[in-house]
């Protein structure tokens, strides 16, 4: 594993380009493009007019937009032509969100108070408006093949979903959803089914076909807090619904009925489950006492704990909103064989479920609360970070913990993979660095970047 040098970053907005070749890391008001393949680490530097709140690559990796919400500005840069520039000013309408369309030539800006969505075209002079977008967790979703846009809307206190054709922004379907307060929508990877879910006060998942027909409704229980997170499996076979009761329910794509539910108890007693516990490798002094104080954060390794194991739990405040209970993070591996989950009241553990046998496979318990985990887009390899200076990798072959080299403590708060799966971007509060994982042929063109200090 090779680590690159550390670059400045703001707002943890590091993004890989869709082709995996570049990494964008906005500074305070400048955008840094780092190449992941060539020798030159810093490819280009663009200066923006204000503090950048959102960065997004276009789907063909040719353009990158930087959104500055405070100023209501969006600046677009071209990688091929560094002198090309584009600036979109929303003016008094304000800006709260900005994103690319799948064809990479339109930008959708959501104005303040979610008054409307303006579709700016980079090819023509046309502008389109979409009224009444809904202000919710996940109101805009594009299908994977880039043909359709599903938008959540709210008119007269009722929720609607509109489906637009991305090629000409024509409204294809418009239908109402039987929800109290639609919280999010997401296309299935095959682009034929749209999942919509209700607010956390009501457990309801609705499945709509591409042509707007309601295929199925699923409700697991009443009264208690409902859905916290939703994820489709890459093969579109499963829909995983994580809820506040600490369970993940898997729906199957044929009948849309629950296949099984995965509970997250704090005590694990199944002997087939492998539990990895992170343990510190504290260096011992001559007298057998641990050397104190350690010069840098101690190394750690994974130990296999014998079942039965009990994990650390967190008792959430019951009278506060958005309590830290329930399954808050869900992710399927790219081959749909594994599902990684995190139960928010067992914050140090990541649970990996085997989707072929539909049971718990591995539990990884870290020393600190798990901040983020991401699957490698190419293979079933999971990268985890827990706010320390280490990054953890798990695959069915085993797991390891890697210390991020650096003079100070590099607190890894979040991470992301490029689509090629051969590198990792580690993000801390103000910095980011690239970590190159060894490829099979061992060719590591960036040996120079092993600039550890």
């Amino acid at each position: 594993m090779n680590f690159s040098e550390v670059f400045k970053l703001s707002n943890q907005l590091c993004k890989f380009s869709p082709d995996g070749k570049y990494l964008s890391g906005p500074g305070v008001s400048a955008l840094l493009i780092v190449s992941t393949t060539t020798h030159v680490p810093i490819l280009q530097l663009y200066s923006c007019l204000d503090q950048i709140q959102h960065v997004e690559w276009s789907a063909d990796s040719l353009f990158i937009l930087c959104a500055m919400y405070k100023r209501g500005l969006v600046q677009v840069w071209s990688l091929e032509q560094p002198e090309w520039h584009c600036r979109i000013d929303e003016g008094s309408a304000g800006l709260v969100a900005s994103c690319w369309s799948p064809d990479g030539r339109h930008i959708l800006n959501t104005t303040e108070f979610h008054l409307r969505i303006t579709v700016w075209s980079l090819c023509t002079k046309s502008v389109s408006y979409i009224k009444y977008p809904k202000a919710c967790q996940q109101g805009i979703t594009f299908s994977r093949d880039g043909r359709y846009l599903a938008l959540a809307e709210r008119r007269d206190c009722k929720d609607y979903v509109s489906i637009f054709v991305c090629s000409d922004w024509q409204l294809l379907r418009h239908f109402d959803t039987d929800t109290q307060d639609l919280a999010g929508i997401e296309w299935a990877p095959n682009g034929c089914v749209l999942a919509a879910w209700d607010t956390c006060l009501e457990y309801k998942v609705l499945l709509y076909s591409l042509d707007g027909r309601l295929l199925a409704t699923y409700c697991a229980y009443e009264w208690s807090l409902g859905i916290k997170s939703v994820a489709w499996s890459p093969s579109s076979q499963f829909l995983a619904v994580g809820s506040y009761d600490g369970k993940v329910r898997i729906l199957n794509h044929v009948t849309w009925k629950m296949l099984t539910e995965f509970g997250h108890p704090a005590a694990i007693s199944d002997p087939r489950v492998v539990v990895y516990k992170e343990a510190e490798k504290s260096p011992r002094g001559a007298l057998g006492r641990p050397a104190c104080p350690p010069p840098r954060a101690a190394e750690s390794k994974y130990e296999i704990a014998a079942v039965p194991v009990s994990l650390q739990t967190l008792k959430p405040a019951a009278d506060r909103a958005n309590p830290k209970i329930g399954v808050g993070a869900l992710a399927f591996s790219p081959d749909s064989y594994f599902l990684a989950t995190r139960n928010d009241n067992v914050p140090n553990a990541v649970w990996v479920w085997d989707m072929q046998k539909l049971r718990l496979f591995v539990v990884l318990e870290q020393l600190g609360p798990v901040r983020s985990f991401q699957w490698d887009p190419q293979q079933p390899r999971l990268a985890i970070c827990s706010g320390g200076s280490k990054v953890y990798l798990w695959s069915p072959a085993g797991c390891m913990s890697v210390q991020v080299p650096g003079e100070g403590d590099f607190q890894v708060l979040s991470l992301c993979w490029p689509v090629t799966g051969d590198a990792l971007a580690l993000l801390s509060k103000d910095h980011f660095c690239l970590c190159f994982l060894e490829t099979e042929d061992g060719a590591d063109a960036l040996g120079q970047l092993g600039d550890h200090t």
Partner: protein
Amino acid sequence: MGDWMTVTDPGLCSESKNISQYTSETKMSPSSLYSQQVLCSSIPLSKNVHSFFSAFCTEENIEQSISYLDQELTTFGFPSLYEESKGKETKRELNIVAVLNCMNELLVRQRKNLLAQENVETQNLKLGSDMDHLQSCYAKLKEQLETSRREMIGLQERDRQLQCKNRNLHQLLKNEKDEVQKLQNIIASRATQYNHDMKRKEREYNKLKERLHQLVMNKKDKKIAMEVLNYVGRADGKRGSWRTGKSEARNEDEMYKILLNDYEYRQKQILTENAELKKVLQQMKKEMISLLSPQKQKPVEKADDSTGTGISDVEEDPGELSRESIWDLSCETVREQLTNSIRKQWRILKSHVEKLDNQVSKVHLEGFNDEDVISRQDHEEETEKLELEIQQCKEMIKTQQQLLQRKAFEEERASWLKQQFLNMTTFDHQNSENVRLFSAFSGSSDRDNLTVHSRPRQKPYRVSNGSLVCTSKLTKSLPASPTTDFCQTRSCVSEHSSINVLNMPPEETRPNQVGGECANQKWSVASRPGSQEGCCSECSWTSTNSHVEKDGLP
């Protein structure tokens, strides 16, 4: 007369008192006097007795005693002690006989009474002990009754307490349920209230938004604009198109195409899965049938239902298979048939396994001997089966060996024939071959000259016959030459072989019982050049050895 002396016997004080009560009374009930007398008689003889006895009658009162006794006895039903009076006022004489008889009678009665008394006393004792026993039983039972009553009371008390508790818990449960219901109602009412409030606020908010939107739009803010250096071409290089009705229809079409593709893909997947599952089921069915049928070798007329169905299933099976291969679609009836037949087979298998289990359990119960017997039976059956198999295999091996031999022979013959034809046309090669032929025919044990050995094999008599025929033919057909003899022999041989070849078919009837296709094979082999001469002729050598001596070759 009636003066009884009181006897100071300690045990009889009370009785003697009783007796003294009646001293003055002469009119006593016979029974009481009798009992008194009995009691008195039980007094052990002692000195006092004698005096007691003599106290009744003395020298002075004999007459009175006799009359008294007579009176008593007559009242008891005894005959009178006096003799019959002849006249009035004459003194009645004592009838000694009567007295003796009375005495005897009294003794007899005394003895009887004693016996009776003994019996009564024993009975009394028995009754007394019974009484004691019963009393103790009674006391025990009373105790038991008491304890069980107390226990019952205790249990009743406990039961009552538990019922109380139960009622309390029910009450609590009811209360909790009521509370839950109440809370739910409260939540529902609050939810409606909040929804109403939220709707109101949302409407207000929407109004504000609309107002704001109007203001924003009206302001005609020149700043809302896009500034771009130059417009970029579309990603796919095409031009933009207008939104028309046609494009709408096109979009709809595309959408439906996508949906249909997805459905078709899924249907294909499901069909392949179905086909796989059906295959597995069919396999399972076949295996189940094969599991069940070898054991059911009994005749079908048996009343055993399972056997009947098992065999009938086997008969059904080919028909079903053919039907299902034709209808290899997800036809409703075919599906049902398959699942029903699988279920049937499974039930049969289950019942069979249960039967076996019962047998095994019976065997365990019945002991060691039976176990031996049964297991031996099984072994015998198995060994029979295995022996059959072995026999079959042996037969197969034999027939295959024969076939192989014949093939080899045919190949050799064919090659030999070929050589013959070659020899006939080119006489240059003849000499070497002649030598070889000669040596062969002379019956030398030269193993190298294998080419000719193929001939005489199994039918020496034929060869000789053929040779006779041959020579006559030869004289006519072939041209004369120095090597005519050899030619003759050669052609003879060829004719032999040809004859033999021709004669092969009828002889093949025997081995054909085993394999029907042998004839065809041989014919085809005969035409092919023999490549296996070397190996096959080895086996033929053993047969030819015996035949060579018999060979009457020219």
